[in-house]
């Protein structure tokens, strides 16, 4: 475990002679060597550092702390109050069986004075096949690095998807609630409700996104240069985002004003004191 440590003092037991050991703490300089007293507590061994290994998550934002403490019951509370999610571990905490799938992996090039610099760009879609979807992208020198960054990006961009019925309201919702359209660049993607059993009628790229969002039946229409995959993917993603922005008659009723999780938790804390 002592491979990649940066310890300034020998980890040998300090109960040996009180020889002055060069040690650095805070501050610049100091007056040369500081004497080491006997019986000082031995320094704790810091383990080797690994990126992305199994390390416990210490939350850094208020929302993260509430999630880790178990005060927030589901992701929908976070979506209801439009609280930005800054830590991707929050998403991991709620959605345990999230699937990650790269949709487009390819090289992109940039012209420099020393020739061309090639990197790999990855577009990854993250979803639970039920009602959450996220789209992320990243370019990096290695493919695996790009996938890693794109997965994190996708988790931070997670959205809920609203489903509805085409006709009779029996069994679970299976299609988009209404006709929605999304656009990016020159690409326009329109999602239209379809009867049960139709399946997803779409191009390969957007079919994958709609499958992972949990939509079972859908007609699509697209326009513009759909060969630009990045714009096509983003347009489909924006269309799915629109499902919860659309006001339908069943949402006309009055809703009770609820307090945000931060307010609820601060009252809980105040009650403790």
């Amino acid at each position, binding site marked *: 475990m002592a491979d*990649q440590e*940066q310890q*300034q003092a020998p980890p040998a037991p300090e109960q040996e002679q009180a020889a002055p050991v060069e040690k*650095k*703490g*805070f*501050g*610049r*300089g100091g*007056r040369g060597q500081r*004497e*080491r*007293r006997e019986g*000082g*507590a031995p320094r*704790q061994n*810091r383990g080797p*550092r*690994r*990126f*992305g*290994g199994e*390390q416990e998550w*210490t939350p850094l*934002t*208020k929302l993260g*702390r509430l999630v880790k403490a178990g005060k927030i019951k589901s992701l929908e509370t976070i979506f209801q109050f439009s609280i930005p999610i*800054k830590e991707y571990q929050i998403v991991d905490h709620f959605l345990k069986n999230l699937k990650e*799938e*790269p949709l*487009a*992996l*390819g*090289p*992109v*090039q940039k012209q420099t004075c020393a020739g061309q*610099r090639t990197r790999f*760009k990855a577009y990854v879609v993250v979803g639970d096949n039920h009602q959450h979807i996220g789209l992320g*992208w*990243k*370019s*990096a020198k*290695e*493919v*695996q*690095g790009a996938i*890693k*960054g*794109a997965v*994190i*990006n996708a988790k*931070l*961009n997670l959205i809920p998807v609203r489903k509805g019925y085409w006709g009779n309201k029996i069994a679970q919702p299976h299609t988009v609630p209404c006709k929605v359209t999304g656009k990016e660049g020159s690409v326009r993607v329109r999602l239209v409700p379809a009867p049960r059993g139709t399946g997803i009628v779409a191009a*390969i*790229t957007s079919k994958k996104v709609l499958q992972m969002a949990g939509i079972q039946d859908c007609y699509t229409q697209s326009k513009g240069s759909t*060969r*630009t*995959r*990045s714009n096509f993917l983003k347009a489909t993603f924006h269309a799915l985002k629109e499902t919860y922005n659309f006001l339908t008659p069943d949402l006309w009723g009055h809703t009770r004003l609820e307090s945000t999780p931060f307010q609820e938790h601060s009252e809980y*804390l105040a009650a403790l004191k």
Partner: protein
Amino acid sequence: MNNKEEIVIGYLEQTDDILNIDDELPSYANGLPYFLENEDKFEPIKCQQCGNQMKMLLQIYAPLNKKHASFREIYVFLCLNEQCSKNNSSVRVFRMQSQQKPQLLQSKNKEYILSPQNKSFIIDTEIISAKENNNELQVAEELLPTNFDDEDKDVDLKNVKFDNENKIYENYLKSTEEKEDINELDGLEQDQQNNIDGCFLIYQHFLTQYPNHIVRYCFDSQSKPLWFSDKKQPQIDSKCPHCKKNKIFEFQINNSILTYFPELYNLEWGALYIYSCPSSCQVGGQILIEETIYAHSDEQEFISPNLKVDPNTKLVSINTNKSNKQKQQIQQQQQQQQIQQKIDEKDEEDDDW
């Protein structure tokens, strides 16, 4: 954000005996502060917003190579009042220094203790070389979806595990579904993501690599702090009142310290950045010299000061060289200020007459 000097990071470690440590002066958190002079020489430190006494978060022993600052301690104080916590003036930082080895006098004011149920912690240090720091920065920029990844860099990716990603990539290559042929992926090489906070991802990366570290110290005019977020990054222009030089960044306290003290859970800031005079001047004849501190929070309701104006207008201590008469005058002036601030004390003022 590349640093040239090495960075010292500090961890909290529980200990029963604070004074039996290797350094001459203690660096520790949560307890009665150890001042270098008798605390009767100055007033107890109060919050500028509400007037309550502040609690000491930690004190750090940070000597410099200069003669007058060879024994130098920095104290950080917090106000735990709910209304104050949304404001930058709920934190204050002070510096005490001396030439000869001073006598450590523990304060008797129990109000200074932050969390009475917890024990005290000493601050254990570790050094990160500039090279390792810069490499970690580049790894973070390479692998995390920050928006800073345009430059060419030589990244050392030895420590990174790509197990999951290898599986995903192999599944993608093996999958028999119809895939379009990609020779060159179109679309922009650099797609900006508007709602991703790149600085926060880098900050989080450092905090997972060096887990639970509290303090990040790099007292150099070239060094830049590790910002908590890319919103509300300040422009610190405050100057030392004595030598008129610009204050430089000394150290930052990360909010991983809140996991140790559950009383601090409703505090809004993400990190505290302390700026101090580079030559550590002795201002006037004061014992406690106030320095600039910036509480960084990305929430809009958090009131941050306009740091272009020098905030060091209110000083805490009383000048010990003045005569008794002048001391009385100063005390009377301070009392009159309190009358203006607090209407409740009107009755007591009447008694004084």
